């Protein structure tokens, strides 16, 4: 029989979760002996807490900051794989308003959400001199940004620029934080330490199958996965999905750098240390945090699925 496994995402179903849906619908998980249920997240849903409490088995983490914070609180959750090499987090601004360089944005009002304020914005402050006073609240509504031509706004490279283009008819300036030094892994797979200790095989199978799912989603027929996404989230449009997938590829969010040799999901100690040091400098985490507890390389970097990559 298949092992029942639940996986909590951190947002409504979208192409950024495509690989996981792909593995569900194309039978990859089943092939690895898993019966996976995807539990959608949302703006207030706290699937991380459910994972920690043992209600679900795996959780899709946003970036590494929350994981470092968890270590600070002695929460036994561990990152076992990183599906995105780059965080899709961007800042965008109106073109031709004197805000065309990232450095220009420090003087303009900037719409940032609560979680952003507790994470990447702290890094923007320390690395680029952004100021908290300029922050305006962002509630996943682009209207206020569109209304103020002198403003900037956070977003996901796969999502907000599309909305802006569609609604307001212009292409905003897009600054991918990952390309500016915010070198966290993203869209991670996290699980509890006790699951790793008790059933490492299950973890390995979930990681491997998810990686394969991502290869298929990016490079093979992903129509069924998109249908599944649309079923979970009826507000998702084909146009949006196409845009997202294009951006995933264009920016190499999933498959670039280390993954070319190590396979999707790759993580390295160097990247982890580099990012941790930046966060310490930004004051996001304390320097004495034992950040190595936040992840393990035991399940990745094995070149799983490399053969599925088109040459």
């Amino acid at each position, binding site marked *: 029989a298949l092992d029942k496994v639940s996986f909590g995402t951190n947002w409504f179903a979208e192409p950024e979760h495509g690989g996981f849906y792909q593995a569900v619908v194309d039978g990859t998980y089943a092939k690895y002996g898993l019966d996976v249920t995807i539990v959608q997240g949302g703006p207030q849903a706290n699937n991380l807490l459910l994972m920690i*409490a043992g209600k679900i088995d795996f959780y899709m983490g946003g970036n590494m900051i929350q994981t470092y914070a968890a270590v600070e609180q002695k929460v036994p959750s561990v990152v076992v794989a990183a599906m995105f090499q780059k965080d899709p987090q961007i800042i965008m601004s109106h073109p031709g308003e004197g805000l065309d360089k990232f450095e220009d944005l420090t003087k303009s009002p900037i719409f940032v959400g609560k979680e952003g304020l507790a994470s990447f914005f702290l890094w923007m402050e320390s690395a680029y001199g952004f100021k908290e006073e300029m922050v305006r609240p962002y509630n996943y509504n682009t209207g206020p940004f569109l209304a103020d031509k002198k403003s900037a706004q956070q977003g996901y490279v796969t999502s907000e620029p599309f909305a802006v283009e569609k609604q307001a008819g212009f292409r905003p300036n897009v600054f991918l934080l990952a390309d500016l030094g915010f070198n966290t892994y993203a869209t991670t797979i996290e699980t509890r330490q006790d699951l790793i200790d008790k059933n490492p095989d299950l973890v390995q199978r979930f990681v491997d199958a998810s990686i394969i799912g991502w290869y298929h989603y990016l490079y093979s027929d992903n129509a069924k996965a998109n249908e599944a996404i649309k079923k979970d989230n009826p507000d998702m449009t084909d146009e949006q999905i196409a845009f997202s997938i294009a951006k995933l590829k264009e920016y190499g969010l999933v498959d670039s750098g280390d993954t070319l040799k190590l396979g999707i999901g790759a993580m390295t100690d160097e990247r982890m240390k580099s990012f941790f040091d930046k966060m310490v400098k930004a004051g996001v985490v304390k320097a004495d945090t034992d950040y190595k507890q936040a992840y393990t390389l035991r399940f990745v970097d094995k070149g799983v699925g490399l053969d599925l990559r088109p040459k």
Partner: protein
Amino acid sequence: MSEAARGSAGGRVLDVILPILVFLAAVAGWEAVVRIRNIPHYLVPAPSLVATTLVSDWPTLSGSLWVTLKVTFSALFAAVVGGVGLAILFAQSRWIERSFYPFAVILQVTPVIAIAPLLVIYLDPPTAVLACAFIVAFFPILSNTTLGLASADHNLVDLFKLYGASRWQQLIRLRLPAALPYFLGGLRVGGGLSLIGAIVAEIAAGTAGQGSGLAFRIVESTFRQNMPRVFAALVLIAVTGITIFLFFTLLTHLLLRHWHESVRRRDT
């Protein structure tokens, strides 16, 4: 207080027509402002666009509305049972009231957003949603009913005591009827709060997958900058709220018209 309107048939007609006119004027004003100031539809859509969206997106929206309505009415039911039940319990003894009322206050002021994740851990999602909505809605009913139970005419209380009424009889035959106007007042507040509660609960307990109610629709449509749909959902919420309110106003009239000052039309 408006003497001119009292009783006359003309007054009655105006009673219905005037609110409708005012409402239409408000909608027309909104449409005008949007057009004249050229407000883009992704900020504030014109009512005409909202109406179109309401029609075109009806299949999606009606499903979500149904989900939200189910939660709203369950929450309202729970709030009425819980609020009135607690009020009755508190009326039994000042000690019980003093000892446990603070917990009711704590429950009222606790932001559901903060405790919803915990509830989701210990309760299954539908129950957690219901619990959140209940927390939002029950307090006005509790508070008003408590006040009403305490406001029974002391002379009538004496009468009941004299005739050896049991605590239960005093409650059923005296305190509850006397509390009715207060309770119904609480219900008119609680009805709206159940709706709010259902929406907040859906967001807070975040069970996007299972129940995609109007809250999910709003969040997701906001995220997609689909403001016409956001407003269409808001219109549905407003209509639901007004319907609940009108229903309770009607109920109040039916229940109190024989005796309570607040709804009695006096023969003059």
